[in-house]
């Protein structure tokens, strides 16, 4: 068994080498983090798993708390790529409810709805009301701010937030920051945080101990994945410069409907699967539009992300699970 595990690690390292991340740098990151991510393939779907101690039978052991990220539920979408997005969101919630270690809360990283319609928000609320995790944190996706500059979104999910809907909170020693990078987008650009929000962020993290683990979450990736499709945030570098002094920074995003990960110094970037429909890998299709897969394959490319926090190592282990394997 250890050999098999080693094989997987080696394979992952090789893949990372091909991705332009050098092996030594990667190992250094792992040594710092005390844990790390291993990608395995199950039914053709890459799964990232912490390879230190939170996989297999010992899952959840030594974990101080966990939370789950869901993303891109696109309630209201009814095209062939997934005619029933409400059902797949419900499946995701059922999966979360069935987890042996109950998550403390859920984070939804945006695109709750397809067209920001009140009826779509209502349906989403109805499904989420049934979740056993009662606390859910939201940030808007561009689909949640259509027509009304996000007024309706803020009314429903943004009470007590600043500006376009950004906020922060602390949970068991971890500082969480929800950012909005889908408002006031400029022609020709990608996602944008804007000057006001950047100032707020700088102020929000100022004075915190560098040993405080930081989790940033926003809809559009805060690292540039594929500019041609707008898969990045124009001013994300400035945002990241404010948190670079911290020992552990985890960045969680959605928007691209597929898992992508990158470790850069002390910052781990991660994008989640959608609960609604998959999108093509960067550059593999004429556009980023919904990707139609055979109906029996759909639940393998939709999923949830479980994030486990271990106080002793001050590390976060991210585990992605498809709705079905």
């Amino acid at each position: 068994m250890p050999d098999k595990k080693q094989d997987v690690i080696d394979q992952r390292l090789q893949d990372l080498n091909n991705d332009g991340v050098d092996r030594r740098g990667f190992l250094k990151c792992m040594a710092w983090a005390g844990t790390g991510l291993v990608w395995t393939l199950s039914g053709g779907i890459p799964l990232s798993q912490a390879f230190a101690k939170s996989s297999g039978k010992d899952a959840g052991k030594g974990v101080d708390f966990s939370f789950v990220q869901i993303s891109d539920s696109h309630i209201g979408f009814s095209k062939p790529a997934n005619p029933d997005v409400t059902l797949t969101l419900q499946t995701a919630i059922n999966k979360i409810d069935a987890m042996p270690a109950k998550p403390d809360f859920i984070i939804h990283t945006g695109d709750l709805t397809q067209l920001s319609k009140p009826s779509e928000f209502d349906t989403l609320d109805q499904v989420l009301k049934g979740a056993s995790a009662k606390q859910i944190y939201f940030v808007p996706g561009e689909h949640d701010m259509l027509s009304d500059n996000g007024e309706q979104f803020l009314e429903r999910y943004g009470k007590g937030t600043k500006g376009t809907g950004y906020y922060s909170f602390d949970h068991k020693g971890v500082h969480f920051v929800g950012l909005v990078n889908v408002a006031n987008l400029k022609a020709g650009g990608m996602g944008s945080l804007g000057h006001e929000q950047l100032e707020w962020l700088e102020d929000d993290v100022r004075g915190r101990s560098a040993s405080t683990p930081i989790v940033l979450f926003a809809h559009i990736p805060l690292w540039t994945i594929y500019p041609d499709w707008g898969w990045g945030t124009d001013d994300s570098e400035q945002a990241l410069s404010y948190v670079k002094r911290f020992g552990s920074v985890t960045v969680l995003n959605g928007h691209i409907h597929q898992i992508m990960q990158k470790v850069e110094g002390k910052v781990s970037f991660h994008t989640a699967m959608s609960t609604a429909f998959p999108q093509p890998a960067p550059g593999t299709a004429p556009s980023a539009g919904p990707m139609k897969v055979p109906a029996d394959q759909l639940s393998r490319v939709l999923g949830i992300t479980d994030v486990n926090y271990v106080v002793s190592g001050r590390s976060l282990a991210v585990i992605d699970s498809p709705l079905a394997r």
Partner: protein
Amino acid sequence: MSKFRAIPENYAPKNKRQKINLERKQSMKNKSIWIAGWAAPVMIGMLLWLAGSRNVSANDQPAAGSAAVKIDNFVFGPQTMTVPVGTTVTWTNSDDIPHTAVSTDGVFKSKVMDTDEKFSYTFTKAGTYPYYCTIHPKMTGQIVVK
């Protein structure tokens, strides 16, 4: 049509050279039939194509006061369109994802267009009107009104 002399049906090659000549002639004849076989449909096709492309260019530069921009695969097509003053431009969204067409200078602003929905605007003044999709700002285009 064939420039080859007809070969008598009872013709039999007397030696190897004649045999080779016969085979060559037959193969040339077959070839010319083959060429005629595909040349005619191709020429018809080209004529149709020419006729068709004339229609397309008529749509691109309308005199009748209307023009169409198709949104397909996250692209405004054509990206730059030149129209006479008074033209009504209609955008149609052919994607599975909603888009908008919003003037960068605040001249016009579509509602959110879901699949197959349209937005029209009539340009009454000459000028260049850059616009973009506020949901996917990488999508840009411009209307040049002359």
